[in-house]
C-alpha cells in the first residue's frame, strides 16, 4: 500500500485526542452521555486510525497483541471479582460497597466508575484485536 503524507500526519495528530476523548467518555459515563461500551469503541477507533496510516506491524510495537489479549481476558475476571467483593461485604452480588460522594461529582457513582473502566478496556481491547487480525490476514 502506498503511503500518503497527509493521512499519516493527520492520523498521528488526531489519535491522541481520540484516545483522550475515549477515556473521558469512560470516566464520566455515570454523569454524562457515554459509558464503558461507547468509550471502549472510541478507544479502539483510535487504534484503527493508527493501523490505517502506519500499518499494523508498527502499531503492534506500541500495543503488543499478547498484552492486548491478556487485558481482554483478564478484564472479565476483574469484573467478576468486583461483584464478589460486594458479596463478601455482606451485600448482594454487584451491590455498591463504596461510600457515595456528593451528587454530580465523579466519585458519586460508587464502584460504577471502576466497572465502567473495566468494561471500556475490555471492549477497546476486543475490537482492537479483531481489527489486528483483519489487517494482518493475507
Amino acid at each position, binding site marked *: 500500500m502506498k503511503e500518503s503524507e497527509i493521512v499519516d500526519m493527520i492520523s498521528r495528530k488526531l489519535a491522541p485526542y481520540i484516545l483522550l476523548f475515549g477515556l473521558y467518555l469512560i470516566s464520566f459515563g455515570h454523569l454524562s452521555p457515554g459509558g464503558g461500551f461507547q468509550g471502549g469503541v472510541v478507544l479502539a*477507533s483510535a487504534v484503527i486510525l493508527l493501523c490505517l496510516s502506519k500499518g499494523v506491524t508498527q502499531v503492534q510495537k506500541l500495543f503488543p497483541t499478547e498484552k492486548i489479549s491478556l487485558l481482554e481476558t483478564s478484564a472479565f475476571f476483574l469484573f467478576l471479582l468486583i461483584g464478589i467483593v460486594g458479596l463478601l461485604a455482606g451485600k448482594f452480588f454487584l451491590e455498591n460497597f463504596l461510600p457515595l460522594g456528593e451528587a454530580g461529582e465523579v466519585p458519586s457513582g460508587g464502584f460504577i466508575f471502576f466497572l465502567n473502566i473495566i468494561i471500556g478496556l475490555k471492549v477497546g481491547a476486543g475490537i482492537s484485536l479483531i481489527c489486528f487480525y483483519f489487517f494482518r490476514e493475507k
Partner: protein
Amino acid sequence: MTETILILLIILGILSLEFKDLLNAVICLAIFSLLCSLLFYYLHAPDVAIAEAAVGAGVATVIFVLTINKTRRKEEVEEEE
C-alpha cells in the same frame, strides 16, 4: 428535520441495496449510520448516538472495506478459470 432525515435514510437504504459495486454500498451504509446517529441525537438519545456513530460509521465501515479488499468479484474469478 426528523422527516427529512427519515426520507434520506430510506433513499440511502435503497441505494445501498441497488448498487452493483460493493464499495459504493458500504459508503452508503456509513452515511446511513451517520444520519442515524444525528436522528438519535435529535430525539434526545445522545448515549445511543455516540455508540451508533462510533460502531456504525467507524469500526463497521473499516471492517467492510478490509473484507472487500481481500475478496474478488465473481466475474474476475470466472475469467481466470
